[in-house]
């Protein structure tokens, strides 16, 4: 049976102490229950854990003055970037989150603002590397069979730093979009804006201008950039076809210097 004081339960049937107005004394084996956080840091929870699987913008709630919470943050092997509310005042300045993988962050609420301290631990995030695959003689291949016309397939370079194959579902065996590599074009979530340029390099057919992002131009890799072959012909009218595209990446919109060059191929079967 619950224990009540003037009709307010202070010890529930589950042996939980609730509605506690004040506690005085000493404690021994007493621990905060850790809770898991996705993006909202609740100041009423003492210990919170978060394993990031992508960049996260955190929010705060329950920030009554005097409350303290510890956030045990794992930015992941890819070094995802956390963004915290501007109401948090950091000791010195906001830490460089890419400097470590694991962070113990303590936040103290002052009501309208919070103070934050952070300690980073080993397991440093990998150094950002921009690379591309394939060579002129051995480009990375995306092979598909023709199906319901038109045939469409290509390569996608996304803002998450990964490279994807694209095969239209109407192709025979077309897999739609599939992840090809998390290490090519960027091994981590990009730390800045990069620029990509695609151009036709060799092959029997060219990239389709209408179904691709702008060719032969440096364009910001801030969204999905895709470069596709689009063939409206009856597959009985042509033999095997292929297109090799040259992909370049730079940190500057001018394209200088080029950080990485790769060659990506689309090949498909014709039955003529």
């Amino acid at each position, binding site marked *: *049976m*619950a*224990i009540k004081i003037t009709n307010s339960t202070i*010890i*529930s*049937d*589950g*042996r*939980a*102490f*609730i*509605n*506690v*107005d*004040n*506690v*005085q*004394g*000493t*404690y*021994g*084996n*007493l*621990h*905060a*229950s*850790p809770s898991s956080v996705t993006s909202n840091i609740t100041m009423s929870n003492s*210990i919170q*854990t978060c394993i990031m699987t992508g960049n996260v913008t955190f929010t705060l709630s329950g920030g009554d003055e005097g409350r303290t919470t*510890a956030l*045990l943050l794992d930015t992941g092997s890819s070094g995802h970037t956390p963004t915290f509310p501007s109401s948090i005042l950091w000791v010195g300045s906001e830490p460089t989150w890419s400097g*470590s993988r*694991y962070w*113990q962050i303590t936040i103290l609420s002052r009501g309208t603002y919070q103070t934050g301290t952070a*300690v*980073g*631990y*080993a397991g*440093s995030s990998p150094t950002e590397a921009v690379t591309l695959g394939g060579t002129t003689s051995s480009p990375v291949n995306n092979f598909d069979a023709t199906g319901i016309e038109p045939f469409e397939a290509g390569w996608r370079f996304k803002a998450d730093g990964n490279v994807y194959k694209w095969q239209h579902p109407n192709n025979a065996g077309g897999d739609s979009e599939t992840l090809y590599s998390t290490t090519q074009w960027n091994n981590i979530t990009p730390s800045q804006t990069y620029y990509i340029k695609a151009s036709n390099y060799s092959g029997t057919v060219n990239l389709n201008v209408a179904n691709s992002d702008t060719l032969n131009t440096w364009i910001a890799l801030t969204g999905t950039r895709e470069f596709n072959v689009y063939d409206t012909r009856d597959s009985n009218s042509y033999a095997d076809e292929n297109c090799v595209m040259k992909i370049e990446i730079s940190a500057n919109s001018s394209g200088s210097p080029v950080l990485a060059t790769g060659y990506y191929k689309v090949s498909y079967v014709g039955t003529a």
Partner: protein
Amino acid sequence: MAIKIAGTTVINNSRAVTNMTDIAGNYGQFHGTAETITTVLDMNKPVMTRTLTAATTFTATNIATGRCCLLLLNVSASGHLPTWPSSIQWPGNGAEPDWDATGVQHWLVGFTCWDNTTIRATATGWG
């Protein structure tokens, strides 16, 4: 007389709260009990104290996610070296503090259990 909930004591005859499942509310003058240890860092003990009289190898027990403890460590004027279990990781590049640094004798070592096997620690030293 102890207070029980469904036959389980929640406040014993010594006024100690036991078997609690949760507590929600505010606290005022509420402190962890400091206990002297020898070589076992017990994550069930909120505040531990130890004065080294020789080089000492510590072990850790009761590691569970979210548990936090403090160790008030005195390496003595002789600067005896502590050795820590591999479950403990140190900030930055993982290098341990310089325990026998000149002029530093007293250390406040904080432990936080990140999971059930890993403890991440901080340490601040004074003379």
